[in-house]
């Protein structure tokens, strides 16, 4: 088990969210969409300019900007 910032994950890598280190509006939006500790995610791919990133979780696809993925810690 290794802890990574989501931003550093590579395409097709999977992991489990261990912490969300942000409060306020961004934190709330992230959590509302189901990114909470214990959730399994997989990096589905990145946009042509490497930002934003598309994630697969709980049967749907979510996109985040890299600077937003910065706040999410994942265990891989």
């Amino acid at each position, binding site marked *: 088990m290794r802890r990574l910032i989501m931003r550093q994950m590579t395409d097709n890598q999977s992991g489990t969210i261990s*912490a*969300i280190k942000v*409060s306020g*509006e*961004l*934190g*709330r*939006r*992230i*959590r*509302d*969409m*189901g990114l*909470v*500790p*214990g*959730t399994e995610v997989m990096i*589905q*791919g990145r*946009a*042509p*300019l*490497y*930002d*934003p990133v*598309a994630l*697969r979780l*709980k*049967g*749907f*696809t*979510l*996109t*985040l*900007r890299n600077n*937003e993925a910065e706040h999410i810690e994942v265990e891989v």
Partner: protein
Amino acid sequence: MEATVALGGNPNSGKTTLFNALTGARQHVGNYPGVTVEKKEGTYAHNGCKMHIVDLPGTYSLTAYSVEERVARDFLVMEKPEVVIDIVDASNLERNLYLTVQLLEMGIPTCIALNMMDVAKSRGLEIDVEKLSALLSVPVAPIIARTGQGKRELMDKAARVAEKKGETTPLVVSYGSDLDQAILQMQREIEERRFLTDIHPSRWIAIKYLEKDEQILAKGRETNLSLATWLERTVEKVSVHLQQTLDTYPEAMIADYRYGHIRSVLKQDVIRETYDKDRVQTSDKIDKVLTNRFLGPIIMLLVLMGLYQFTFTYSEIPLGWFEAFFGWLGDAASAILPDGLLKSLIVSGIIDGVGGVLGFVPLIMFMFLGIALLEDSGYLARVAFMLDRVFMIFGLHGSSVMAYIVSGGIAGGCAVPGVMAARTLRSPRERLATLLTAPFMNCGAKLPVFALLIAAFFAENEALMMFILTLVAWSGALIVAKLLRLTIIRGEATPFVMELPPYRLPTFRGLMIHTWERTWHYIKKAGTVILGISVILWALMTFPGLPDSEVQHFESERDLVEAAASPAVIQEPESADKEAELSADASALKEKLAAINTEEAETALRHSIAGRIGTALESVSYLAGFDWRTNIALVGGFAAKEVVVSTLGTAYSLGEVDPEENESLAQRLASSPNWNPQKAISLIIFTIFYAPCLVTVVCIAKEAGSWKWGAFSMTFNTALAFGLSVLAYQIGSLI
């Protein structure tokens, strides 16, 4: 019995589809008070019970952060609908239930519509509906909104909930010992002092305090300041404690435990997956191609060009019908009405003005159809995803691209549907910046001005010039957007966090409803205001009329010319045989008369208020190289950019100028001592950047929710345009 039924649910869960299936044509679209969030209402008759159905905005949660969430929550709290039908996407159960849990915590009478059962089935998901219903203590009805299957059973269940008249106990979710203790403590005080308990359940108020919900916090301070302060302090204490012990915040814990609660429900054999979990779904396979690093942008470019081609090619035919119809109407009115002011008002003011607006309808309809297609299929979200990186630099959002393209990002669009396309943006600041900058794009009405000036002064490099002008428009729009986001629309980027919905085949009915709703909006909004404005503009260019002495002067000149000609020649143009060529004398006479008429028109225009404004502006506008004629043309361009070329024509005594065939005007400008390439460039730049046409201004004001922004776009853009033109003209003249 009558009952109000609210439809709630996540975006893309099928709310609109269910709403349409229930209400059919019996619907009414308006806005929620004070905001530009659409409110759809309709009725549904069920076993003699008249149900008043209200579509709430699609939300993922019920915090008070976004306008949509606030609107949905306020409606539930204030209007107290008898029942909320919560539409839950069965193929995406866990996340959809997050909203459900919040509804249940608020103690709102709820009935779940488990939608997309067909999709869930095809993904190999089996859902035990009875069990879900029992575990959540809420009626659950499986439906397929697209086909209307299960709709009756759903409404049966909803009606039964409604009959109970709001006797529901709020759901209690455990938030861990620390928070639960704090909640109980707060709850006691809240109940004792009856703090907001007439509107909300006490536990819910406590939870909202822990979530730092601004709306509730503000309301609390108003109601009972001392208790509110105590509650806030209590929350502060728990926060510090949580941060020290668990390195987390109360609001984060609350979200965790809510999802935990949902998971514990689903784990009790509610969901069974019969397929391999890692099976790649079709949608993901499509995405591998459509958002591929290399293929993605190429396909996107082709799709956008295709949309553009589709709109402007296919709308041309109905556009022609509309033009022909208004042309015919104008002619008919001219024929029936006696000469004079009334005729001028009706023909030049009302028919031309309103025709100008309604003439856009086919274009707008096709554009909306194209956008609805991209939106309903799920592709639009991918475009936003791919382009976000670029637009983010300028403080915009990936979805801004649609508004830009439609407005004329590929020269020849129209800012009216462009501004309306900005609706798909859910981030308020990015949306406003997009609305205000989209009109800089080179819309179809600006093209004749460019064509004229390029033909007159840069005929060798037409294509290159057009390309440069497109680049100028884009850079201008993006730079101004950045400036706005750094100054008056300052603020952090709204989080991008966005769902990429699975690709779906749009339904014909859905497309038609989408397209028609938006088109009708346009007709209603633009039609009413524009009528008034065209009349004002007509008056400006008509009054005061020429003094009698002047009129007589032209009259006598005409008489003089006619007297010089023989009666046979005068009769000739009126003779029945229209096909025949006029004799040399007759056409010479006709030209002379026309020359006098146009000179009269020029003098009259100069004499009118608009003319005087143009002349008065000359003292400033000479800095940019514009004389009074150009000024009038530009003033007319406030109404619609199409007017610029035709007004220039009148001002240069050319009579009626067909914008498509402006060669004579181009020659005239090229040989005129008053004109030179610097002036042409200055005018082109001014045309790109100055005030959007009035229809667009009306749309900006409506879409931004305030006339302030309409006024802003007029003044700011004109000032900016003038600054740039002066710069271009002065520098150009130095070289």
